[in-house]
């Protein structure tokens, strides 16, 4: 017996029964998961200020890089995406390639954080974290890796404090916001963020997530789950799926004044690329970025399109600047198998050739102390 479409009625029937069976199987597997581990690479808390915490990962090689690398993630999602699970961890791969890694966790803003602005985050928390690492490493300059919105922060920071950044790496970072390639860039123009901030104070993470999910509603809210039913054969697969789900829906609220400025000054007025952005009293001039720059973007990124990331290289004064792209989307760039194989080695190698130090780390203070003039003065004092 044949229907106009299917090979047989029985096939149509078995498809239906099969879907039902898979759904039941998914219930058995998924509801058995009460929690999943994320961010399991060993690390230590080295500095804390308000809700911001700075972690240092324990090295995985005997002699890690002498110049530490600070990873700055976005405010809109949790940074454990960089260390999602053992076999999908950019952090772990970088550690294996000899990096000495620090990472900022911005935390979950509470109602009292509504007045935190971009200056507090960049000239406050980020700068204090950098200073702490400089103190610990006894170096004047460290390496900085900013991801997504954290990449924008890193670029702003490097322009404000070029004397503290040895090498700058940015991943999928929006810099030129005046693009019609990314849907968020279009919608933001009509978004009255003032009204949102005035109403909520701290803008809920769910509200932000709405924007991301709406970008591809059928693939993100339907086909992803239907596809999962096909592949859900064992507990490990279910846990991996749930782990990613946990990250997607684990969205911290956004401190009101910070998101207000981010949307108004960057998404709407595009002030950063025009060198007109003000952070507190200081104007951000991208031409002050002279250190080596590695700009990484994802070719199919629908959240931060390549056209928003690539213009950075033309806006800075750096002579040594590299652009690196990977196939894939905004999230795949951190966790895909391609990323695990290509991205971490590329970053580590790029940094290694630019992080050579004299025999041992020398801080500014130490350098001054070693200068002949200083040594003579010291002898005299003794």
């Amino acid at each position, binding site marked *: *017996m044949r*229907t*106009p*479409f*299917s*090979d047989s*009625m029985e096939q*149509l*029937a078995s*498809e*239906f029964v099969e*879907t*039902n069976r898979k*759904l*039941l199987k*998914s*219930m058995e597997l*998924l*509801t*058995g998961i*009460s*929690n999943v581990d994320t961010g399991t690479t060993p690390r230590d808390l080295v500095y804390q200020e*308000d809700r911001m915490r700075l972690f240092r990962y324990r090295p995985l090689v005997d002699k890690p890089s002498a110049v530490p690398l600070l990873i700055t993630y976005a405010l809109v999602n949790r940074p454990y995406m960089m260390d999602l699970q053992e076999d999908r961890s950019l952090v772990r791969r970088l550690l294996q390639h000899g990096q000495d890694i620090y990472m900022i966790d911005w935390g979950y803003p509470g*109602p009292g954080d*509504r*007045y*935190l602005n971009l200056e507090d985050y960049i000239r*406050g928390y980020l700068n204090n974290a950098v200073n702490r690492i400089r103190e610990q490493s006894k170096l004047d300059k460290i390496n900085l890796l900013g991801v997504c919105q954290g990449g924008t922060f890193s670029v702003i920071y490097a322009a404000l404090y070029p004397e503290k950044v040895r090498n700058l790496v940015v991943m999928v970072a929006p810099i030129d916001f005046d693009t019609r390639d990314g*849907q968020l860039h*279009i*919608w933001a*123009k*009509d*978004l*009255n963020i003032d*009204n*949102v901030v*005035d*109403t909520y*104070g701290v803008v809920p993470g*769910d*509200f932000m997530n*709405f924007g991301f*999910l709406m970008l591809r*509603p*059928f*693939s993100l*809210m*339907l*086909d992803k*789950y*239907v596809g999962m*039913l096909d592949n859900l054969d064992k507990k490990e697969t*279910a846990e991996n*799926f*749930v782990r990613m*789900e*946990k990250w997607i*829906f684990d969205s911290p609220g956004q401190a009101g004044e910070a998101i207000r400025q981010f949307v108004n000054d960057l998404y709407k007025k595009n002030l950063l690329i025009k060198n007109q952005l003000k952070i507190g009293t200081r104007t951000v001039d991208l031409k002050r970025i002279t250190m080596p720059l590695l700009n990484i973007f994802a070719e199919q990124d629908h959240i931060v399109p390549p056209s928003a990331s690539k213009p950075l290289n033309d806006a800075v004064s750096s002579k040594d600047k590299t652009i690196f792209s990977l196939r894939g989307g905004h999230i795949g760039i951190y966790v895909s198998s391609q990323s695990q194989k290509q991205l971490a080695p590329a970053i580590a190698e790029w940094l290694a050739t630019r992080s050579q130090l004299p025999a041992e780390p020398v801080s500014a203070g130490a350098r001054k102390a070693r200068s002949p003039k200083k040594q003579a003065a010291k002898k005299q*004092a003794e």
Partner: protein
Amino acid sequence: MTTEHGRETDFLGAWSEAQRSYMRLWADTLSALPRATPGDEGAKGSTGPWWEATGRIYDEWQRMCQEMFGEYWKGTPSTIGGQTFARTLGAAQVYGKLYEFWANAAKILSGAPPEGKTVQEMYQDFYSSWLKGYSASLGGFFTGSFPEPMRWPMAAPADLMTRYAEALSQFSKPWTAAIQGLPQKTAEALQKGPQAYGEALNWWLPAYEQTWGRLLRMPALGPARETVGLLQQGAEALVNYFSVSTDFGSALSRVSTEAMQKVMTELGSMSDKGQAPKTFREFYKLWWTTNEEAVKVLYQTPEFSRLLGLLVDAIMLVRKRYHEIIEEYLKALPIPTRTEMNDLYKSLYLLKQEVRRNTKQVAELQSRLKRTERATKKEQP
């Protein structure tokens, strides 16, 4: 499944039983199928045409999903796996609805096209007749998936507004009733003398006491006009939200319907070429990718961006009004309001900034002092 909760075991027991009855229904249907071929109205002794049987199975499955899972989730502690399954179930239900469409399409389109009609026209006819229920089922997939902040105005404040409106109506009822007879009573009272006047006043006073008077004697609530004004503004914001969300929803619905029309045209065209999807899964892929593409095109339009901006604004306005009303009522209680807390947060924020500035200054001064001390030591013989 090994489980820590007895209730889960109960649930699975019930589920297994439902599965058994479902499978029995399925087996019965399959056994009837040879006697009911597509295009056939059903052979003697069968349970009816095969598509009806398929429809029954679908209905049974839907009912089972809704009842079993619905009951199960009511009291289930929220775990990350459970939340993921809830989302999966939502997707599976959309998938099931599409299956229903597919089964119906098989029913209608199994025969040759009516005389004078092409296959494509036959597909379009089917689509037009089926369209009516589309928005309510698959077409609503999108807006039904909105997160809490976007769905919020439909729930909490709507309920609150209704209750406010009811309260207001109860509140003003005695006054309205009393005021209707007041002119006559007053006129009578004036004609009959002081006693009658007193009686009229006594008749009118309780109404006043129960209504405006009571409100005016509640200083914590403020003057009545302010409260009523807030309620009116809240209601207005809600009406505005309904209006904007209707525009927004209809834009999405229109695109969704057009996408389905495109799917049908494509299906007809593929069928003509003998390339129609062979399995439901192939059809499903055609459906969702066509929809995704259609939505993407809609997103690119300035009109959609404007509507989205208006929708967000409307939601914010409802929430803002809601906060104002709550604050108005909270004034009577010794509970800090949102505005008061915001003032406090602001003071705390400014104080923290001041402490940071001072700490930095102290550190700089200490460092300067040390340098001065060192310099002084050097100068000493």
